[in-house]
């Protein structure tokens, strides 16, 4: 029953939390750039307006792919907050990401295709760090089960700092933040226009936006999982950690320029190998 409550809470609250996070993101970014910035609720206004607009698409099947993307993304988060296997959550997430790729590439639009090709490279870039993070949890806690990880007595972060660094690193890719916003850019009039979202308009863009909110709340949940344990205080610590990580992502976003995909791949894999890899070796040694 408890599990059902959590799943229901995620499904209902995640878009609200995700939207608010994006609102805060915009506000802080604006302040960093000495602008006033939009109101906090602007993301909601945007999405509501998008939903009201008349649908215009290049390809009719795009909506279908985006809808599947959204449902898969919700499923991923629901499985995570429901407390199932963490590897399975990430596998479903990568299936969801594949549907996003389909939604973009189906249009055969030049800019969308460039964006989606880059999206594929991004997926390849972050996947090892994600898989290794799951292994980290497994080695520390002896289980892949999210619920068991969350209620154990151990402070995971203390034993797996390397995995955490690698995960935060790929979070920049996952959240489409500069310098790794290769597949889509924040603004028009850049070399890839809007990349993967170029051909998404009206309801379709709203679907994409809502899925992103669900995704971000899920990813932040994973960040929180590094500190959540049986102590009730740990939840507060998790929230502080999430806030810190989110702020860090915004800071990185605003202080760096977009990289080429080769550099992204190289740097990310090196970081993954050096921090998560070394951490893994250390844990394996303790384990044996």
């Amino acid at each position, binding site marked *: 029953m408890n599990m059902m409550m959590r799943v229901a809470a995620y499904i209902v609250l995640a878009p609200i939390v995700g939207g608010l996070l994006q609102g805060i993101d915009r506000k802080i970014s604006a302040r960093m750039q000495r602008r006033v910035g939009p109101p906090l609720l602007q993301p909601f206004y945007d999405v509501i307006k998008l939903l009201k607009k008349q649908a215009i698409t290049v390809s009719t099947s795009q909506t279908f792919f985006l809808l*599947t993307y959204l449902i898969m993304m919700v499923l991923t988060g629901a499985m995570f907050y429901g407390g199932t296997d963490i590897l399975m959550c990430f596998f479903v997430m990568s299936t969801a990401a594949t549907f996003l790729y389909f939604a973009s590439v189906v249009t055969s639009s030049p800019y969308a295709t460039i964006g989606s090709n880059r999206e594929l490279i991004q997926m390849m*870039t972050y996947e090892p760090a994600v898989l290794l993070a799951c292994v980290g949890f497994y080695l520390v806690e002896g289980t892949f089960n999210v619920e068991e990880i969350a209620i154990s007595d151990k402070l995971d972060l203390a034993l797996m700092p390397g995995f955490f660094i690698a995960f935060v690193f790929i979070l920049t890719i996952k959240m489409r933040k500069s310098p790794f916003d290769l597949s889509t850019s924040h603004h028009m009039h850049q070399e890839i226009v809007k990349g993967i979202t170029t051909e998404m308009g009206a309801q379709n863009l709203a679907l994409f936006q809502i899925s992103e909110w669900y995704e971000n709340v899920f990813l932040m949940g994973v960040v929180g999982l590094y500190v959540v344990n049986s102590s009730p205080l740990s939840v507060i610590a998790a929230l502080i950690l999430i806030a810190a990580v989110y702020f860090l992502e915004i800071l990185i976003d605003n202080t760096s320029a977009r990289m080429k995909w080769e550099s992204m791949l190289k740097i990310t894999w090196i970081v993954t190998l050096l921090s998560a890899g070394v951490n893994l070796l250390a844990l394996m040694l303790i384990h044996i």
Partner: protein
Amino acid sequence: MTGLPLIPFLILFPFCVGATLFCIQNMEVRKVIAYVSSSLIILADFILLFAWLAMGARPVTMYFETAFVDRVMLAAELGLMVLVVFLCFKYRKYWISLLSIIPTCMILWIELYVPKAEGGGKIYLDHLSILMCLIVGIIGGLIIVYGAGYMDGYHQHRSDVPDRRRYFFMLLFFFLGAMFGFVLSESLLWIDFFWECTSICSFLLIGYTREPEAINNSFRALWMNLFGGLCLAIGIWQFVTHTGSVSLHELIAVGVAGRAVAVIPVVLIAVAALTKSAQLPFSTWLIGAMVAPTPSSALLHSATMVKAGIYILFRLAPAMQGTLTGMMISLIGGFTFIITSIMAIAQSDGKKVLAFSTISNLGLMVACAGMGRMETIWAGVFLMIFHAISKSLLFQDVGATENSLHSRDIEDMHGLLYILPKLAIFMFIGIAGMFLAPFGMLIAKWSAFKASVDSGNVMMVFFIAFGSATTSLYWTKWMGKLISQSHIREKKFEDITKRNEMISLSIHAALMILLCLLFPLLSRVYVNPLLTEMFGAAHDVLPQSVLYVLVLIIIIVLAVPVISYNYVKNYRTNRKLSYMNGINEGDNRFFIDSFGDPKRLWLSNYYFPGRIGQRKLMVPGQLFAMTILIVMMIMIIGGVVA
């Protein structure tokens, strides 16, 4: 138990059918015979399964007195040697003939002069051998049904190739017979004979077109496989001279007991299996095998040949666990997995991608066998089952697409869904089965991952974490090509896929989805007993609850697209042109270039052949694998001899 008439039937029947087909001139009659006999083979497979289940589903050894058959086999082996020597001299590849003469002489010598314990059983039935029979029979049978239709289209499309279909179907059936013999044999001498049969059948199949490239590639396949045969023969010779036994299970038992006598035979047979399974440094023959018509490459890649290597490694797995040999095999498998999956990214030829992905997936299975733990074999067996079906489906589909589209380049498959919708959907299903959550391959890969963590194999954890990322890339971009809209061409392509090809493809697709849904059941009813036979105990690597959740997700994954498709179907949308900075010309296919002329838009995937292509990575990969192989072989053999 002295015998079960079904077993000689399974082995001999394909040989008889093959010989008959060769003698019949009329094509229609040939086709009917091929259909009937492949159905009979599939039927016999199931009867064997049920007969054996009725016998109590326990491992059985059979056929103890076989002096006459042994002599016939010896004569046949000499015949094969003469054939190979003749062909080697005909095509001036003299040295390759040595690789056939030496092992044959060794086997001859063992058979005639080395004292052996008398009366060992020659045939062994257990879960693993029956599973292999089912894979070979069902997939192989369907491939032959498909081939009957495909070869018509092939000779229509390739009118330059001499029509030798009689010979082709004869070889396909011989191949099946040899595979049945291989997986059912308990005697190492029998295993060696059938091993040589499959090597030579594949050599002849690859050389089907007799073009210079085909001949070259077929000889490459021949020498690599014969080299494997040589290792196998030396291994058998070592074992027989030391223990006087030719029983495979005796060898495994001795190996599990940790006696030094088994070390050299096990490592040599494992190396032989590496050549059969096209692991680095022996991968190039399988890539070269694509020059043959599709049914033969489907047969080589999915159901037979390469699976023979995996089969023998699974058999040896308990003896390899925790030994240097096991470490060597898992290292080479894992390395092959990642390096060939990177090379697959650089390929745009559909069949080449399939070839590289076969080698890569085999690498994972080999690594699972090398780790030799119950959990890894659990994963390996599932990888084998799902790979056989998905890969056979994909090969047949690419072959059929090539016949209709006159190209098998992935770039030419842009928008295949709108050109050849049926074939595109089958291709889509096949690819989804290869890597997407939550289909079989991914679950198997997942359990291999978990098992490597459990066994503390850090190298494998890295190989799988990075290798699965590169694997997703090449599959996803292929899927993207299939569904991309709009370069709708002026030229129309006619779907000339025959009905029998469609039947085979549909059965494959249905089988794949069905097996994904039956995963938990399959694990409990069949795979766990298989592992119990091998290791004495077994449990699911992924808990049953997780397996059931996975089935639920499969249903959701299958249902969501259907539901959202129906939901979207009646959705009113306005179509617009895609964004091209306002320089669209007419529809989405053209834009205005800098000279003000309309230019065709051509979208392409990323391949990076200059950076990660076959030319760039193959030789370093081979050298690296060869170094591992040589150094570790010296360590292993030196450790025993010293």
